[in-house]
């Protein structure tokens, strides 16, 4: 039995699997159910300051190789989020990462100021959702200066209110130079990163009706197909910037998770695997990691982080 515990931004996680933002993340009850299913930590669905409507259905499609979604970040706003978070914190079975999203920089700061009043662990600044582009323009995660500004302002606000809360930035693969964006965020005081957000957007067409299937027409691609890209970008950021990373993108097995960690991730975000392997994918992945470690003489998972040879 290998030691599966990892430390991320000073917080201890019982195992490296964390629920990725956007999947099963609407209510405290759902977060608790995911922890019962083996997750080492939880990332909430992205929280807006005010109530925000998502896109009509269909919002998610799947094939064996990929999932594509344009849910459009529906949310009831920060007040409802706070009541769900407080409900979760009563028992707090695992660390909580709260994802926040806004249309403008000041909106991110306003939400962070509300969330930082609670005893949560990490704020994930979602500057990279490709599904609200029609509403807000190019994500901040695609422009280094914008990414830097929002990171600096959120970090300053959170530090003032609750220095125990770390601020990490969710990075987009849909940019020419992810390392440049990561460096900008690091200079602005980011404590870590989560990457990658969904790829694309992509388009899927129903042949008979000749219509795009997603109501938003285009959507972010996730699932097994994007894993090699995620592993590569995690490794790029790991080598260039010395900050902790949540590696996410198509992880469905223990082997996938180990690969992500060897590339440099400390935690591994799990989302689409809930579909591919069921809600207990967290314990399945963790068990598979454990088996591999036992077979290969690895005593602690921390040994493998960033251990890829080059």
């Amino acid at each position, binding site marked *: 039995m290998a030691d599966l515990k990892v430390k991320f931004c000073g917080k201890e996680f019982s195992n490296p699997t964390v629920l990725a933002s956007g999947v099963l993340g609407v209510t405290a009850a759902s977060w608790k159910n995911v922890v019962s299913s083996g997750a080492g930590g939880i990332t909430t669905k992205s929280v807006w300051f005010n109530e925000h409507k998502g896109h009509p259905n269909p919002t998610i499609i799947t094939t064996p190789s990929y999932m594509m979604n344009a849910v459009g970040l529906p*949310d009831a706003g920060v007040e409802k989020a706070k009541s769900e978070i407080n409900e979760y914190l009563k028992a707090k079975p695992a660390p909580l990462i709260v994802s926040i999203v806004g249309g403008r920089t000041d909106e991110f700061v306003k939400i962070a100021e509300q969330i930082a009043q609670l005893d949560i662990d990490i704020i994930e600044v979602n500057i990279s959702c490709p599904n609200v582009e029609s509403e807000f323009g190019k994500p901040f995660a695609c422009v280094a200066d914008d990414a830097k500004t929002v990171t600096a302002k959120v970090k300053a606000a959170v530090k003032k209110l609750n220095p125990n809360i770390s601020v990490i930035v969710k990075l987009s693969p849909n940019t020419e130079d992810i390392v440049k964006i990561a460096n900008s965020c690091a200079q602005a005081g980011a404590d870590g990163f989560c990457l990658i957000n969904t790829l694309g957007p992509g388009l899927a067409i129903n042949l008979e009706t000749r219509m795009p299937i997603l109501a938003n027409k285009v959507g972010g691609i996730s699932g097994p197909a994007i894993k090699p890209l995620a592993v590569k970008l995690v490794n790029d950021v790991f080598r260039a910037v010395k900050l902790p990373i949540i590696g996410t993108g198509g992880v469905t097995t223990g082997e996938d998770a180990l690969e992500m960690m060897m590339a440099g991730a400390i935690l591994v975000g799990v989302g689409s695997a809930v579909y*591919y392997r069921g809600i207990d994918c967290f314990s399945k992945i963790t068990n598979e990691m454990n088996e591999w470690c036992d077979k290969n003489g690895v005593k602690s998972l921390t040994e493998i982080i960033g251990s890829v040879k080059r």
Partner: protein
Amino acid sequence: MTHANLTELPVALKIKKVVDETPIIKTLYFHYALNSRPGQFVMVWLPGVDEKPMSISEDIGDGFAVTICARGDTTKKITELKEGDQLGIRGPYGTSYHFEQNENIVLIAGGYGAAPLYYTALEAAKLNCKIDFIISAHKKENLVFLDKLKKFKGLTLHVATHDGSVGIKGRGTDILKKIVEQKEIHRIMTCGPEMMMKAVCDIGDAKNINTQVSVERYMKCGFGVCGQCVLDPMGIRSCVSGPIMNSKVLKMLDEFGNYQRDENGNKIYFDNPSMK
């Protein structure tokens, strides 16, 4: 949860036949082997507009039907479609009603909840079950499948309307109370407004009868990923662990009969007395 081919994409199907049930409720028939079980649902996609979960009202092997009430913009547009028009269908999804050979069962429907229970009756009759079918609504115009049920051989039909326009004047649950007193009932299955189903659970639980409920929540993906339809406080997903759930499980879900969540996750309480 099994996903044989791990694909969730709508299949475009031509509407084979449209039947008017009431001025706002239509049944759409499709020629397609859905392989469903009674109580399960499909996602019905109107391209370019929206996609909604609908329970299945018949499945005869190479064809199936859904019964749709025009209660919002999307369902209104769907009920305006004609024979030959296309809709996208994915599924079937979720759990189904469970019954066994030769059982005495009561099916109790409120309004267009009669549609999935009609399908259930068809399947239960094949297993030689003795069926009491209670159908109720505010008024005659809100009853669906009444003629089909009247012609259903071997099924005992009970009708109640709140205004007395057809059947007894009162509630379906009044009839249910009498039936469970008069004879041995193995299972009760219900579909209708939540407060009615809650009352059905109370009656079934008091008699220790297996009671199965069709739980309706706002759904997006239908296959257990988006988290839109999770139930408090257990956090279970109504699209995967439901829609058909046992009253004993519902007892652990404070949310049942109390509130549901809207598309953004806000709690909407069932405080409207007309829903009771």
